[in-house]
């Protein structure tokens, strides 16, 4: 327990960041909530419409629901690639003796490349005319029948725009998980090994439970990042063809800045905030239940 005087000074020093947070984060959220009850195109007078925007969003807007389910698909692909990939690579790294630093750096590299560059890079990779890397590879390994314009095919485009985002952050989460894995006490592992535990048992009974707190944080980070995904799909396909790769975020952006329907866009923004909170709540709830079980 801190003495009174230092508690006060901690509070005083916490105040400026709290104020900044209030102005930069809470205020815009409240403002969006306020705007969501209005119809406003930015230049005419604001018109109060009550819950009409919410009713429209939930009952009469096919693009909204399409974007919502697309966003869930996008999230699922990103999570599998980011968390699954990160865990796999980090586990393999711990059993490597040489060249760890090189592998770590190589995996982390995409995280520092700008999104715009990544988007353009992948547009080229997926291209069919001129033939991009992916179609070329398929051709070489005898799967020529699978060659297609990945970003123009409504069946493949969502996966195609999710992959770069997943690929990009695998390295970052790998680093976090790798650091957590290093903290697993060696004595425990050795004791388990002496008791005849297999590698899989070692992983599921010792390592994974030990890194659980870090895993939860990483999952929350990856989920909220995934739900906020915007730039790569926007740059690669602008939500198209049709609405096949439209996410809630790109739809919100277009509604605000292309359709100049700021009221309705705010309604979608409020939904995204709620969705993120629900997602984090669900993760915590499920993990807690698992821990209690």
């Amino acid at each position, binding site marked *: 327990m801190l003495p009174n005087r230092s508690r006060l000074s901690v509070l005083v020093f916490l105040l400026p960041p709290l104020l900044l947070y209030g102005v930069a984060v809470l205020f815009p959220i409240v403002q969006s909530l306020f705007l969501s009850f209005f119809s406003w195109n930015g*230049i005419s007078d604001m018109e109060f419409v009550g819950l009409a925007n919410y009713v429209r969003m939930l009952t009469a807007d096919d693009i909204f629901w399409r974007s919502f389910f697309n966003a869930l698909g996008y999230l699922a692909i990103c999570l599998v690639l980011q968390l699954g990939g990160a865990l796999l690579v980090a586990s393999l790294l711990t059993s490597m003796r040489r060249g760890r630093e090189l592998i770590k750096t190589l995996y982390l590299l995409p995280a520092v490349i700008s999104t715009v560059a990544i988007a353009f890079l992948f547009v080229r990779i997926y291209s069919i005319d001129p033939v991009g890397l992916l179609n070329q590879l398929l051709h070489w390994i005898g799967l020529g029948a699978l060659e297609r314009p990945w970003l123009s095919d*409504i069946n493949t485009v969502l996966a195609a725009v999710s992959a770069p985002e997943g690929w990009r952050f695998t390295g970052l989460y790998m680093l976090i998980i790798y650091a957590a894995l290093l903290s697993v006490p060696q004595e425990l592992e050795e004791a388990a090994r002496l008791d005849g535990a297999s590698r899989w048992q070692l992983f599921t009974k010792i390592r994974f439970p030990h890194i659980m707190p870090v895993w939860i944080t990483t999952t929350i980070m990856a989920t909220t990042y995934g739900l906020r995904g915007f730039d790569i799909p926007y740059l690669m396909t602008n939500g198209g*063809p049709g609405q096949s790769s439209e996410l809630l975020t790109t739809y919100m952006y277009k509604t605000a*800045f292309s359709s100049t329907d700021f009221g309705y866009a705010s309604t979608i923004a409020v939904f995204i905030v709620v969705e993120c909170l629900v997602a984090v709540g669900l993760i915590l709830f499920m993990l807690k239940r698992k821990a209690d079980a």
Partner: protein
Amino acid sequence: MKKLFRAAAVAAVAALALTACGGGGGSSDPANVSPTGEIKPREISWLLSRPADGAVINIMKKLADDYAKDHPGFALNFITTPDRPSYIQKLETLAAANKLPELFDTDATPFAQQLAKQGKMVDADKLLKSLDVYDDYRPGALDYQRFDDGSLYMIPFQFELEFIWYNKALLQQAGVSVPKSLDDLPAMCTALRDAGITPIAIDGQDQWPLERYVAYQPFREAGPDFIQKLKKGEAKFSDPAGQKTVEWLASLGRAKCFQDGFSSQGYSDAQNQFTSGKAAMYNIGTWELPSLATDKLNPDVRDDIDFFTLPTTAGSVTAANEFVSPSGIGMAVNSKTYDPLVSDFLKFALKKYPSEYAATGALSPTTNVETAVPANATPLYKKALEKANDLGDKQAMPWDTQLDPTTNGRLQQELVLLVQGNITPEQFTSTMDSTVAQNAPKFFK
């Protein structure tokens, strides 16, 4: 502690008050085009959507420098965003914040019309007349900038004609000739595909190029009024003219007219396909003359390139010399910041602009100057320019400048699906008719 809270509260209120001040409306009269008073040189800005090293900017830069010689302290600040969708978002956001600069670019969109209605733009009709340059302009160039009610709030800086460029050798190889009717196109595409040639190269990423195609059949079938009615919900895609274009676009899709994966290919991809001799046709305007009709063009295809204007159809109500002839994005003058300086500079610049612009080899929006054909031009250059001399009265308007933004966005999305065969013509028709019904009334009330 209390003091700190008080200070924070004061700061928050001050911030709110400052934001509120920024929202003040314009007070000037948009019809007052000759403000009186002293010319006080200052820096003015032009928010624009034109290529950064293009002729328009280069010339205006030079004219601004010339003007500054006599008016020390004057400067014209160019704020460029060539990418049109990003530009429009910037413009709309600045308009919403009431922070538009002295000059800004816009098409004659429903959004711009709302700005004009609110008195935020200077009446260009009156302005050009007061500067004594109105009669120099091509009527078509001014008409392109007009709103539906005939009012004029934007000044054109270009004049372009849109053609379908084609590769004679490739057409010959496939045993087809220049289409006599728009309805011949699907069969042409099939023949070209059978010969292993991509029929039409298109920039699918930017969406407006495909949207041009939706305008063609209704313009021939029902004239320029169709889009005027459609955008207000008075006409429908389920009407005969609408159905004709829907069916035609679906047939272009079935005949695989556009390159594979076109929806994710950009402007330069499409142009490369055509200029490298892979695609047989390419629909683009005279702004591309320097790359399609000069010695910059790939020598392998240089002698094979030609163009045809928008084909007519049986029973067409518009003539062969009437097609898309836009005068580019227009420049609007902010009425809130319009003063003797802006007026005097525009007078200076608009008088000198046409001759400078024509000297670069481009078509001037005025008729008082003659375009200089560049030394490295192919014969096609002159042929293209001459088409400007016998234009008909009606022009096909690009639909992206006509529809309300939400309908426009949805149309661009659904068009790709229709042409790729992902939706049926019936689905397209019903989606678009309900989108128009839902969004048009709000914009055009």
